């Protein structure tokens, strides 16, 4: 069981597991319970087959040996996936995952347990297991619970649960048809589809209940093309907290056109020369640079423990003054969007770097208490099976003062990076990588030959200092990115304007 580094992978990637790192903090001010009193017939409670009295009974067990904080995270997820290969939609899968995670926080310690059996005896047993971390006097459970209803950052007119399987099938067939009609060199088309409908109920020891219903969907078109006995493969995908209607003809055309263009250009692509080069990051998916070079390093658990290279850099200049970097949970429909985080705290737009100065880390409840600041609503978990960690949501750089044309024209000999597959960072050293699947050489200020399969490696703080230009064309990528940390994968978004980093180590060849 090898330990993982922090990494981001395109959806469908595999995450390796690692022991969880979760610590806690001294007692903190308890947030005031807001919202309306929870009614016994609340639809979310009915969904999980529980009522306020049951919650109170389980919470009493969870805090029976004392707790600074405790919470119950109920989750029910129904997901559907489909796959088209060789012209046949021949594989369908439906999955139901349901359970409750129970957490007891005492001083610097966290006890965690989960059960997939939502009967009272099973939940009480799990509560006793999590509570065993504590050794003090019992803390009475809240007299009442007050709920905050689901927000509206991703409400669907037709929830995925109500969409029939036959309504999904034409999306896959249409993509195959589009690709076949547009490019004769394509020898194989595979189209993958997945959607999910997730209900979440979070009840905590302060009497707060947070409810959320979180949709997610993804369409992935993969191609193999052949030319003169050589094969190349690539693809494109669309993803977000969207419903069926979002996947309209224009978007299907877009994803198929991208998949074709990205694949066909590989026949002409070569490797750049090895060594240090200026790297232009194209607007959009290049946000992977932010995710790896700074985003993980600003997750406050690493900083609280002193293991991040950014641990001593708060309120210091770390980038040129035109650089502002944001992590945002409030963008409707984005993969990283949340109405509330997985501790029930409201999400927000967190400015990490303002005018080149490091202004904030990303906090969950525990790290916020450690630093004496409000939570940034960044407490996330993969599912009820996992404890909360501070995580990114949608990470992007705001517009800079330059134009894309100015930036490319300024480069004598370098590369421009356009599409990516994955990245990784080593938190302490600050070294990070990302893998370019498509890019171009820049020669004498002009975009020339295509390049492919290049790993870029750099050091986070050093690369930020080397951001010499940023354009006014910032945009979010529409692809399905998944971030991995300590064995947990969560959906994220990322974005970027066109940016020039004056020198990075480019994985090229000597030939």
């Amino acid at each position, binding site marked *: 069981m090898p330990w993982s580094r922090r990494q981001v992978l395109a959806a469908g990637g595999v995450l390796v597991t690692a022991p969880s790192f979760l610590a806690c903090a001294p007692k903190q001010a308890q947030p005031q319970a807001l919202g309306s009193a929870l009614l016994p017939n609340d639809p979310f409670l009915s969904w999980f087959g529980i009522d306020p009295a049951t919650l109170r009974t389980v919470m009493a067990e969870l805090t029976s040996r004392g707790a600074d904080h405790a919470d119950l995270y109920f989750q029910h997820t129904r997901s559907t996936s489909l796959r088209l290969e060789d012209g046949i939609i021949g594989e369908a899968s439906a999955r139901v995952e*349901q359970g409750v995670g129970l957490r007891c926080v005492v001083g610097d310690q966290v006890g965690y347990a989960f059960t997939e059996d939502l009967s009272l005896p099973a939940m009480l047993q799990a509560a006793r297991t999590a509570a065993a971390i504590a050794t003090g006097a019992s803390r009475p459970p809240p007299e009442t619970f007050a709920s905050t209803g689901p927000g509206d950052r991703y409400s669907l007119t037709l929830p995925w649960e109500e969409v029939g399987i036959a309504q999904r099938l034409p999306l896959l067939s249409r993509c195959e048809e589009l690709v076949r009609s547009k490019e004769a060199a394509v020898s194989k088309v595979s189209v993958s589809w997945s959607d999910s409908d997730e209900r979440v109920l979070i009840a905590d020891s302060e009497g707060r209940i947070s409810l959320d219903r979180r949709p997610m969907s993804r369409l992935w078109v993969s191609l193999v093309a052949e030319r003169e006995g050589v094969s190349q493969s690539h693809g494109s995908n669309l993803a977000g907290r969207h419903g069926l209607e979002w996947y309209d003809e224009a978007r299907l055309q877009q994803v198929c056109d991208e998949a074709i263009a990205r694949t066909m250009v590989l026949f002409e692509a070569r490797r750049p020369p090895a060594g240090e080069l200026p790297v232009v990051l194209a607007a959009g998916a290049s946000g992977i640079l932010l995710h790896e070079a700074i985003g993980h390093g600003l997750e406050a658990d690493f900083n609280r423990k002193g293991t991040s290279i950014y641990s001593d850099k708060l309120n210091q200049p770390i980038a040129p003054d035109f650089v502002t970097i944001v992590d945002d949970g409030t963008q409707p429909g984005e993969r990283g969007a949340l109405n509330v985080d997985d501790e029930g705290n409201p999400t927000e737009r967190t400015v990490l770097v303002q005018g080149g100065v490091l202004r904030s880390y990303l906090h969950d409840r525990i790290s916020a208490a450690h630093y004496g600041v409000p939570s940034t609503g960044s407490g996330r978990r993969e599912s009820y099976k996992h404890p909360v960690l501070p995580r990114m949501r949608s990470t992007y750089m705001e517009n800079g003062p330059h134009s894309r044309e100015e930036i490319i024209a300024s480069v004598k000999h370098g590369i421009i990076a356009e599409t990516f597959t994955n990245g990784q960072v080593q938190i302490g050293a600050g070294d990070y990588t990302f893998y370019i699947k498509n890019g171009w050489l820049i020669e004498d200020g002009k975009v020339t030959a295509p390049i492919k399969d290049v790993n870029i490696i750099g050091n986070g703080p050093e690369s930020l200092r080397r951001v010499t230009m940023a354009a006014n064309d910032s945009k979010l990528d529409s692809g399905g990115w998944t971030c991995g940390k300590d064995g947990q994968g969560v959906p994220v978004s990322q974005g970027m304007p066109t940016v020039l980093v004056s020198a990075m180590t480019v994985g090229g*060849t000597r030939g």
Partner: protein
Amino acid sequence: MMALGALALEAATGAGASGAFAGVGRTRQVDLAVRGEALETVSESTSQSLVLEVWVDGRYATTRTTDLRPDEVARLAREAVALARALQPDPSRAIPDPSLFAGRAELDLELADASIPALSHADREALCRAASAPILGQAGLISTTSACSDGEGLSVQLSSNGFSGSHRRTWLWLSSEVTLQDAAGRPEGWMSAGGPHRSQLPAPAEIGAEALKRARDRLGSRKGPSGRTTLVVEARVAGQILSRLLSPANGANVQQGRSFWAGRLDQPAVSPALVVRDEPLLARMPGSRLFDGEGIRAATLPLIEGGALRNLYLDTTYARRLGMAPTTGSASNRVVQPGSRDLAALVAGVEEGVLVSSWLGGNSDPTSGDFSLGMRGNLIRKGQLGEPVSEMNVTGNLLALFAGLAEVGSDPWPWGSTRCPSLVFEGVDTSGA
């Protein structure tokens, strides 16, 4: 659990499935971490799931649930059949042939150790503290965490055409991670070891000491030079590059045109120094099994011999599409035939090169074999280890890389399901300063 699986099969065939395959699993896992001298996290869980595959009039679907109430299982079976009926017929989809179930080895693979479920939290905490003992108080220490992860799992599988089998497994892993301070950053080191039996765990202090050594080895590392050179890849990370070579060697990739192995079966492609077999019947190995996920009896599968790929991983579906016989759809334990010299001797034999002690990011293209990976390690000069290097990439093509495999070490990494020794590659392009 067998009864639950039988219920699912009965419900599926009752709903109209011509064939069905059910798998029921239950796992209990405990994770405990000690950071510095303080207990940090205790996590304990029991999870359960049922997976049901159905074949209906030449159509195929799967369903999975964590809700194992009999009513829910019966509902799931009906849903699976309805799901399949909504799809198009696929002639390659068929329940595995029962002849592939026959002849299962009658061996005790020793995959379960009764002492592991009996561990107490105090036992786990003691293991973690013993691992951290060599680290605490050391100069430059910023943080150290040692973690213990153990569990027990039981899985049963049965099919409507006669398959029935089960596996019981235990595992115990102990890990340490260290962060030190140096002028440029906060280098980390880690070590993790374990297996199905408690007796496989090395002395905890060895794990902590190795993590500390690994972090110290990174102190003062700098970007190395760009050039074409010899790479010595340490056993503990050599399995990762081997996995990139073998991951496209399966029916799905080959049939879908996404494998550089297509058309190369039995053709010389890599160095004859590389001999790899898939070995499912080894005792006390994490990947060992008597049958695979389709119920196919487990047997040794030669992968690379005589410089050529000898077999593909082939499940029923892709074997039918390729007109070949199924082997197995997934890897068990991959075992590389060791050479005769240890890591020190391999390094001593290199005039100029880089010892790779860890990878960082990167990827490879299964269709072309092109790869580019981040790496860290030490320079090698005249057979001696030199200064630590980082922020470097190695770039090339996997077939060309393994064609340039000059030597295999005698030191297979003993933890995990890949037994790969250190590997020496010649003529590799690196990029750094």
